[in-house]
């Protein structure tokens, strides 16, 4: 038994390393390009070059670029902070309420994400113009919230449905209010789901390109828009673009790093699941 376990674990690690190499390869490639100066980017030999920090130096001294980091964190963060409670409550109620209505409402919530962004932009533009929200952080926050909600609702609906309702029922019988049961019982049990949902929403929001491009202004310039500045119609400044992209992953990566413990609580129970 011991050695069989060992073989399995070695094979699993092998599989994992292969998968990781696949997922990280382009990023490593991009990272490598960010340290190259212009002559080396199109050179024949791919691996031999003298690394330079020039690209990064240019970026970190660029106030506009730094400002976009600030903007993105505020906009995505606030949108997340607002969407999570609203969405989780909705997901919880959809998971627990009688099924005929929950089907309808759940599906309608889903349809709000089905419109391709390219189509939403013009009406959004006109709407925001009317409400004086163009180019403001609040405007984008509002748009991001509407994008986050369906994902959060459906993810949390799934995670809450896994939690047996007996526990809440018992609490309700003892006189606990539904809301209190939600906060003290359901939330702690659904924590991995909550963190996963928040991470995925953060990723989707910070990577939005079309909406901040058209609906944002100086105050709401987000990272993707700032990064794409280096990509021209005819030529691309590869060095700075790659450096900018590499820096751009830092906010979300830090969040994932800080939240990693909560992402998969109980991983050590691992071997039993097949």
């Amino acid at each position, binding site marked *: 038994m011991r050695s069989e376990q060992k073989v399995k674990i070695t094979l699993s690690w092998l599989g994992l390393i292969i998968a990781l190499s696949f997922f990280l390869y382009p990023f490593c490639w991009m990272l490598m390009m960010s340290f190259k100066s212009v002559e080396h980017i199109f050179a024949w030999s791919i691996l031999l070059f003298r690394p330079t920090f020039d690209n990064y130096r240019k970026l970190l001294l660029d106030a506009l670029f730094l400002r976009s980091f600030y903007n993105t964190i505020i906009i995505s963060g606030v949108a997340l902070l607002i969407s999570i409670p609203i969405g989780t409550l909705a997901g919880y109620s959809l998971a627990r309420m009688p099924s005929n209505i*929950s089907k309808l409402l759940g599906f309608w919530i889903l349809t709000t994400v089905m419109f391709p962004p390219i189509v939403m932009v013009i009406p959004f533009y006109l709407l925001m113009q009317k409400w004086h929200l163009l180019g403001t952080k609040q405007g984008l926050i509002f748009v991001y919230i509407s994008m986050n909600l369906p994902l959060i609702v459906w993810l949390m609906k799934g995670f809450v449905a896994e939690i047996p309702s007996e526990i809440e029922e018992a609490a309700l019988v003892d006189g606990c209010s539904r809301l209190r049961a939600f906060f003290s019982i359901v939330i702690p049990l659904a924590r991995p789901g909550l963190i*996963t949902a928040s991470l995925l929403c953060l990723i989707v929001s910070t990577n939005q390109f079309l909406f901040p491009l058209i609906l944002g202004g100086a105050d709401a310039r987000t990272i993707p828009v700032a990064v794409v500045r280096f990509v021209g119609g005819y030529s691309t400044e590869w060095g700075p673009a790659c450096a900018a992209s590499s820096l751009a992953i830092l906010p979300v990566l830090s969040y994932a790093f800080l939240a990693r413990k909560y992402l998969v609580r109980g991983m050590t129970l691992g071997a039993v699941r*097949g």
Partner: protein
Amino acid sequence: MSTRQNLNSRRKKISLLARGNLEWYIMLAPTIIVLLVITIYPLVYSLIISFQSLHLQKPNLPIRFIGLSNFISVVRYDAFLKSVTNTLLLALSSVSIGCLIGLGVALLLYRIGAGNIVLVLLVIPMTVTPVVSALVWRFMYHPQLGIINYTLRMIGISGITWLAKPLSAFISIVLVDVWQWTPFIIFILLAGLVSLPSEPFESVQLDGASSFQIFRYLTLPMLKKHIGVAILFRAIGVMKLFDTIYVLTQGGPGRATQTLSIYTYKLGFQYFALGEAAALSYLTLILLIVVALIIIRQFKLFW
């Protein structure tokens, strides 16, 4: 239906609404209000445009109400059917490959209990700005300067022009999408795996079930709903995909990778037929709804 049955079903409907399940509606209210406000206007506006003969290049033409003729002309275009097939094919390939890889990796991660650093690293493909990562991939696909052909040349295969031929261009896009969004599936499935109750697994192990049996008869069915949600959101995401395809192939060569969203963009912003573009986007919406319904039905996503 007899009168007795009629009365009973009506009674059920009334009691459902009157039952003072007010708390559910209060909990749902903020979500519904936000979504209602933010989506009603664009939807209604696009609907109105789709019924009009709006054309940006001919601003002097009066905007007339032309009913369904935008819809009819769009459906008649050759490009329409091609873009529908492309969209569906893309969704099918990307989601199925993504699920296979995603499930595999999620299981591996779960079994190993591998350091959480692995998870953090897996976030990277999703967080790199799509436009830039598409560009990097485009560079990698370059027949002479790209790293992919460089590696292939080392093992003797030469001269694949990835983005220039219809089939390979399609595959290239699937590859980029799988690369970028499979971690999404991994995260959802992993969180699902973690939340599964451990008792069934322990008792089954005592009975001496093999790993494969555990997986096939216990893990997989229990994960069904999570897999369903992952597939649902991924399918919708792929069918809306725009940036990546635009950067890599602009829908080419020819129409090989022209999906509905690229086609909508071309109709609206290259040919300036805004009315038809709006009509096409409504047709896209209908397609997405149908696909979503199929997925929901298949995985019984309504508890």
